[in-house]
């Protein structure tokens, strides 16, 4: 057990840090600390250009193998990359769904043709992706998908009908990966397919959802006889759930370390405010800041345990990975509350009319999504109890 990085890895840290120092300047200067979760709606065009700038430097898909155009970085180097990226305040990645989810899925489950067709655009930062999972009636019960895919023999295409919801970046994306029912008589996780669908077509309509923040980064996506090429199903019809679940595994990757560096930036801002307005002298606030700091520190080492693969030899998720979503989402929600309490009555005052939120105000509101999306805290507790502790599964309901 060792926490230090090797001299080679520290050399790598220098490399990415100085690249960012040189390149995150000029037209990109204004992107610093922007575009993260809760702030996805800002500077989309500039961030697309930034994505390509990163690609020119070879800094997209750093964890992918070189065979697929990645940088082939070790786990340690990926940790360093995401840390330095967030430390520099580099902007939220418009390409993160392609790099973190769509690409790895295609690499793991896709055909050679699909790899050739889709991976280069992700690596180059020129083709953006969004995720079509949730539906109005498929929230926590994700397998309750109603969107249908039927195969049109005559035109040799899949035809998609239905609605997805909570699709972030849908209006900026070139492609969407969608789970849809290929067998209309099937139930739950059986009879699903996993599709790669081009967004720019007449059968797709994107409608932004106005959120609690007054801004929109989530969307509804409507499919009305939308088309998908016959070759653009990943895995066989009926195997969509398996592919989708494999993808959920990728979501717990090293990028969590970068997310934590963003949390650190937010906490630093809270501390800066507390020092400047005197809240740092309040004993109760001091306790809460210290606790928030301690838990963020531990969060980092919890991630390192996950990455080092301490347990999970039975093939299941390691215990420290099972608790991770519940831990960070709850922590982040508390940070939002702490930020407002540090600001005091000033927390109410907006930067601009009619509803121009400051970074901390926006964070405070947006973190309420964290304990809901990607498995609510209640679903997380079910998963922990059932998979982590072997307690009985929830009975299935019988409502028709």
């Amino acid at each position, binding site marked *: *057990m*060792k*926490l*230090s*990085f*090797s001299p080679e*890895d520290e050399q790598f840290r220098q490399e990415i840090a100085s690249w960012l120092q040189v390149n995150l300047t000029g037209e990109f200067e204004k992107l610093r600390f922007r575009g993260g979760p809760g702030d996805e709606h800002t500077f989309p065009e500039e961030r697309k250009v930034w994505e390509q700038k990163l690609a020119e430097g070879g800094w997209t898909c750093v964890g992918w193998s070189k065979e697929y155009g990645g940088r082939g970085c070790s786990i*340690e180097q990926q*940790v360093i990359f995401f840390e330095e990226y967030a430390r520099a305040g580099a902007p939220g990645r418009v390409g993160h769904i392609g790099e973190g989810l769509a690409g790895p899925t295609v690499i793991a489950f896709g055909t050679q043709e699909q790899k050739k067709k889709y991976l280069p655009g992700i690596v180059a930062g020129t083709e953006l992706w969004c995720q079509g999972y949730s539906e109005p009636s498929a929230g926590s019960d994700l397998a309750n998908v109603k969107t249908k895919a039927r195969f049109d023999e005559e035109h040799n295409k899949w035809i998609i009908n239905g609605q997805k919801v909570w699709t972030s970046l849908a209006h900026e994306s070139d492609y969407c990966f969608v789970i849809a029912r290929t067998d209309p008589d099937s139930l739950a996780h059986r009879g699903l397919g996993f599709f790669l669908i081009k967004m720019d077509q007449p059968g797709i309509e994107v409608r932004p959802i106005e959120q609690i923040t007054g801004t929109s980064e989530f969307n509804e996506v409507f499919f009305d006889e939308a088309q998908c090429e016959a070759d653009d199903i990943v895995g066989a019809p009926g195997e969509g759930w398996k592919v989708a679940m494999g993808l959920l595994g990728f979501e717990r990757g090293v990028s969590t370390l970068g997310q934590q560096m963003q949390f650190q930036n937010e906490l630093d801002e809270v*501390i800066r405010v*507390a*020092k400047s307005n005197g809240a*740092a002298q309040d*004993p109760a606030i*001091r*306790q809460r*800041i*210290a*606790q928030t*700091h*301690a*838990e963020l*520190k*531990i969060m980092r*080492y*919890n991630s*390192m*345990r996950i*990455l*080092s*693969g*301490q347990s999970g030899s039975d093939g299941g998720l390691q*215990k*420290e990975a*099972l*608790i991770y979503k*519940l*831990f960070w989402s709850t922590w982040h929600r508390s940070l939002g509350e702490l930020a407002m309490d540090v600001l005091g009555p000033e927390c109410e005052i907006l930067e601009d009319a009619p509803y121009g939120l400051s970074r901390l105000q926006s964070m405070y509101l947006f973190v309420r999504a964290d304990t809901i999306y990607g498995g609510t805290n*209640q679903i*997380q*507790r*079910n998963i*922990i*109890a*059932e998979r*982590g*502790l*072997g*307690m*009985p599964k*929830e009975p299935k309901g019988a409502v028709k």
Partner: protein
Amino acid sequence: MEFAFTEEQEMIRDTAASFLAEVSDSAAVRRAMGTEQGYEPELWGRICSEMYWQAIHIPEAYGGMGLGYVELVAMMEQMGRSLLCSPFFSTVCLAGNTLRVAGSEAQQAHWLAQLCEGTLTATLAFNGGSSRWDAESITATWRHEGDGYMLDGDYRYVIDGHTADLLIVAARAEGTTDDEGISLFLLPAATSGVSRQWLATMDQARKQAAVQLNGVSLTADALMGEPGQGWTSLSKIIDLATIALAAEQVGGCQQLLDMTVAYTSERVQFNRTIASYQAVKHKAADMMLQTEVARSAIYYAACVAQEALEGGPLAGELREAASVAKSYCSDAYFAVAGDALQLFGGVGFTWEYDVHLYFKRAKSSEHLLGNGVFHRERLARMLLDKGEES
């Protein structure tokens, strides 16, 4: 970076777990905790002669095993699981660390050798009766007398203080405050002027004592380090011991979680095991979250402690790591113990079931070496007050 146990470390942990399951079951704990001594000499003798745990992180030059703090922490975690009644924490984590950090070559050679042989138990006394486990808590005093020293004063909460062969005591020069004037002294318990009383405690599985020094006269070689310059070392020693104690707390969390899952999976009400109720599952999930987060905290702190002892880039993080670990683990242990007691229902309230032993240990270890509030305030000072000075 490799933040996982090596195969050897896993073996040490597993060996400890199976040995303790055999020798430190509920009956053994209850036998030992009912005595004033608080441990069974036969079992401590077996640990020292067969397992050699007392020597785990003592350098080989002094007869130790020369392993690191990660191994020590893994061991403490297992001892916390089984509530082992032994003078291990006092002898190894308090006194052993003190000798390693503050002892001269000669002092280490003399005392660590006996410690490793298993012929010496020892402890550290510094707190005069405060909830603040820092320099302020030291009220005993020392002064020069001839070539030697004269010590006076009181100590409370001294772990195994009534049974230890060797007391290492901290005292301050008369008239000094805060971290000035503090010295550490090696004080064989039989020295004239030392009196010791066992203090009966709610958590009977760990014994505490009060120690009084009345005109205790010591020769020059009893002093550790330079006179009055002891706080830097003592602060480091307390942090090291705090990390070991936090590891014990994690072991307690894990044991409570396992006991609770097993019990609720057997207990049937309304024709269902109570483990099938979501209200029970969700509480158990929270217990597991706290246990795993606490474990991540102590593994990190163990790596830092290792570098603090042997050198390394993380050595400077010791104080922070100790406070991060102890604040989280203390609160986690008490919360997990409270939840366990609740989920056991009526039987958890009985003397017969073991839940109360852990519930009591959770509270005693929370307040030993500083509770969550104390350690969070230490962190707050690092985070919020440093900038103002510059």
